[in-house]
């Protein structure tokens, strides 16, 4: 028996679109619209044209869908497109500085292995992030958003940002430390 649209995985839907069934694109948009909007709002806190950016992401997904390898996971691929779109928006607006080169990506980091966190820890982290995320640099903000809101693992974040897996670990660690510092300042923990 053929699967219902809602039962299909993202990768199966992408494959259908690749084969020319454009009507499946609507379900893909519906699945990812809220996620992309949330990612944009968290990453680009001071931007007003988020709806246009999200629309551009889906247009790029449609135009480039045949470059997607259906044997791999779809979510890192679409987040990569979104990341590029947001970086271009930041460059265009010039609202915040983007690091040209980062020493974090040169050397391996030993204390950066992926940690298993329970749901309570993640929930608590999301609460803190909602409060203090705007305060930290985009370099740390983006991996934190991808990890705690979009629930990607280290390797998927590495594929979205095109940085080493160990750098993802170190940025998450430092990002959390910086967040704690800022949150302490605004007495979040009290």
């Amino acid at each position, binding site marked *: 028996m053929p699967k219902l649209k809602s039962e299909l995985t993202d990768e199966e839907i992408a494959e259908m679109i*690749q084969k020319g069934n*454009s009507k499946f*694109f*609507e379900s893909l*948009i*519906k699945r990812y*619209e809220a996620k992309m909007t949330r990612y944009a709002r968290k990453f680009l806190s001071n931007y007003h044209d988020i*709806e246009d950016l*999200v*629309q551009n992401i*889906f*247009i790029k997904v*449609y*135009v*480039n*869908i*045949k*470059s997607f390898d259906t044997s791999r996971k779809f979510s890192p691929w679409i987040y990569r497109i979104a990341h590029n779109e947001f970086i271009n928006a930041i460059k265009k607006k010039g609202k915040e500085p983007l690091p040209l080169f980062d020493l974090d*990506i*040169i*050397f*391996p980091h030993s204390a950066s292995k992926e940690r298993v966190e329970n749901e309570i820890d993640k929930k608590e982290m999301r609460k803190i992030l909602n409060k203090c995320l705007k305060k930290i640099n985009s370099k740390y903000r983006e991996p934190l958003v991808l990890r705690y809101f979009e629930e990607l693992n280290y*390797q998927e974040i*590495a*594929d979205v940002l*095109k*940085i*080493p*897996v*160990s*750098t993802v670990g170190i940025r998450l660690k430092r990002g959390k430390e910086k967040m704690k510092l800022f949150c302490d300042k605004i007495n979040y923990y009290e």
Partner: protein
Amino acid sequence: MNKKLSLSEKIINEIKNGQFKMKSKMYFVLRTVLFSLITLFTALFVIFFISFIIFILKTSGVWFLPSFGFGKIGILFTSLPWLLILTALILIIVLELLVKKFSFAYRRPILYSILAILFFVVLGNFIVFKTPMHDDLFLRAQKGKLPIAGDFYRDFGAPNFSQVHNGIVFEIVDNGFDLETFRGEILNVVIDSKTNFSSDGDIRKNDRVLVLGERKNEVIEAVDIRKIDSRAHPRKFMHWNKK
């Protein structure tokens, strides 16, 4: 009153109106193939370019300067083809940027991909120097049979080798000896009481020697002379003046 369209409706309408078209699979395949080829050719060019630098250093004799000791470090420094070395460094950076586009490279720290590139370059150079490629190209350039890279081989990218002279003793003369250089020039090497001999034994005809000293026209006032192991020279160049 017009109903506000949802994002998905807006995009689907635009697709239906033909405002956006899906790129074909072939476009992405060709793009990947082209990018992989560019990366491969850049890697091969880096090997060629660095082996060329080593070749000219060996042929000019600058490669052997460290054996003269720390005292000659200044000459080594001024004799190095800095423009070529800088170009080689830029080429390595370009190669690193290209390699970093592949997931096997960007998922790991840059240090690893740089080390892998350096290993690849060293291995490539080892293989290149097992072949007579540069010797052949050099000889073809000397005969004017190398159209594009000919000037490069003849002039070595115009580095400053005015104080280092590598060649074969052509004739023993009263004030020293005549030296035939890799460019086929005959230069008169003047030996006086200040000339230092860094190797044992007399200088004889057909000896391979490295002479340090300022060149004025066709005359070199020798400061230091050292015999060079003939095996350390490019093979064809060794027999070149005997033909």
